[in-house]
């Protein structure tokens, strides 16, 4: 089943009197349990595409269907609800709330989903446990290392059981060893049946994915499956 269907979408920004075409004409579909990397140089439109896929932004023209719902017709509240239920974000800069501990950060999407306090705590704790941070629940982000912060962010993305995980340069702020750990975590998340969309400009990161979509100047340059997919062997992290 297609989770995401995009047909001929374009995104045009008005900068002063000039129109900037961030996306010109992009069509693609993403199935359940796919592991897709979106690649491209800066200015290629990959951030715009990611914002679009993440329902943070709506296209200027074209059709975007998320699980048969037309995202283009949604208002701010519908978009917020779909982000909350269906999409788990992982950002390059982690984007945790600095003054809240790990547990509260992971709880946050459940608060907005209207989950009761008790159930929230349990689910957040088990999500943190699943990324190997059971003993760091009450640490604030500044008391955690970069890799640990990204794990908290991943736990936050997973806690609502979303349809897709959307990761924007998840290893961009990490050293290569830690980055490798995070990528193997993504691999395991994928093996558990999750759908992952990875935005990156690093070839070796993109090679973790099963399919690579290359963007250039707001158009899809190439959309291909990876033949020699890199599968990390470190599997100790997720249970």
């Amino acid at each position, binding site marked *: 089943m297609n989770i995401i269907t995009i047909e001929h979408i374009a995104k045009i920004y008005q900068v002063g009197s000039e129109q900037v075409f961030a996306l010109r004409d992009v069509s693609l579909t993403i199935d359940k349990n796919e592991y897709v990397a979106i690649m491209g140089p800066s200015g290629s439109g990959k951030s715009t595409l990611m914002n679009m896929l993440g329902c943070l932004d709506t296209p200027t023209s074209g059709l975007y269907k998320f699980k048969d719902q037309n995202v283009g017709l949604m208002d701010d509240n519908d978009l917020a609800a779909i*982000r909350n239920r269906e999409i788990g974000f992982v950002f390059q800069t982690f*984007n945790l709330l600095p003054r809240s501990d790990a547990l509260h950060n992971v709880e946050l999407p459940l608060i907005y989903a209207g989950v009761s306090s008790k159930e929230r705590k349990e689910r957040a704790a088990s999500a943190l446990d699943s990324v190997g941070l059971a003993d760091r629940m009450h640490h604030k982000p500044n008391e955690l290392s970069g890799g640990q912060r990204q794990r908290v962010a991943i736990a936050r993305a997973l806690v609502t059981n979303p349809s897709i995980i959307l990761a924007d340069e998840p290893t961009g702020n990490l050293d290569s060893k830690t980055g490798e750990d995070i990528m193997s975590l993504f691999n395991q998340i994928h093996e558990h049946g999750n759908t992952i969309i990875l935005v990156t400009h690093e070839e070796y990161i993109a090679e973790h994915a099963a399919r690579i979509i290359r963007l250039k100047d707001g158009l899809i340059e190439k959309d291909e499956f990876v033949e020699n997919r890199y599968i990390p062997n470190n599997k100790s992290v997720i249970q």
Partner: protein
Amino acid sequence: MRHFLFELKEGLMISLRAIRANKIRSVLTTLGIIIGVASVVLMSTAIKGINQAFQSGVSSLGSDNLYIDKWSWFNNDTPWWELRNRENITIEHYAKFKELAQLPLAVAPSIFTNQSIKQGDKTVQFILVVGTNQDYIKTTNLTFASGRFFSELENNSSRNVIVLGSEIAKQLFPTGGGLNETIKIKGIKFKVVGILEEQGSWVMGNFNPDNQAFIPIDNIFKYFMSEAWGSVTINVRAPNSLMVNEVKEEAEGIMRRIRSLKFDEKNDFSINQQEGLLNEINKTIGVIQMAGLVITGLALFVGAIGIMNIMFVSVKERTKEIGIRKAIGARNRTILGQFISESAIICLIGGAIGLGLAIVGSMIIAQFDFPTTISADAVVLAIVISLLTGIFSGFAPAYTASKMDPVDSLRYE
């Protein structure tokens, strides 16, 4: 509804976290509201105190009472010289009035003079010594700490007896007692037969019964004043407040008969009532109230602007946080609620502290014999005002926050 309560609760939790995280700023912001609420509450309490003092002072006159007098308490249309030229009301007028009047519960004459009262080495000056008769007590609500009012016998034989107001007794006999003691007015000895309980309030000044002394009316003319000089007031008490108007009409008719006025002649006397006094007082207090509330309202307004300012700064500073919250599913409404409840909580805390300050302040003021008590509605007032201020000054910043674009705010550094 359940969902709303849930959001409210979570909004409050989030706001509390944010306030805790920015302690110093929250405290400074709160200061404006503390001062604003404290001054509003204190001012409204003070005004209420003044008002109550006047009301209770005036009502100690008795709401069922009429005072037939040469002079009018409030004079808007009759020139003063016309009042001055009126014939004095004499003790004979009083006697006739008493004979003719059917409706009143009690009728008594009164006339006063300012005197000093001495007892041993102590002197109380500028005392209103009221000359009246035994019926006077029936026209008032006065109560006794000890002793009694002078009797008909004592009155008719013009005995040198006196009833003292509580304040006078306190000053002459600071250690208590005083009953059956002898005091002197202009060297003339009077025996104290009664001491009143504390009655009125300071606002009535010398007209407060606490600062008055009562003696048989003939003694006034005998010792202190020529009968030709003074005009007697006829104190009339109606059986109940519903009958005040009937009593007044009857009194007017009788007085016109006594004064032999023709039908087209104007009254040459005034019938005064507590009601008129109250109206005047209410007018004055209304003006004080308006001025006071406008001034303290300004203080509150400045506090509100301070909060709004800080909330705008806070929203700007937390743009990224807003972006994160939106990305993981916070609705615009939720963000709006979060910031409004944050400013409402800051204001509520400020309001509570301000209220505390106002209570302390009113206790201090109360030391100076000024009747202030923080009442339940002052508490409610403080809470409502601070809540409304919080919502009012939090709304614009919160609205800005709720309308932020998630993509832009996530990118904000």
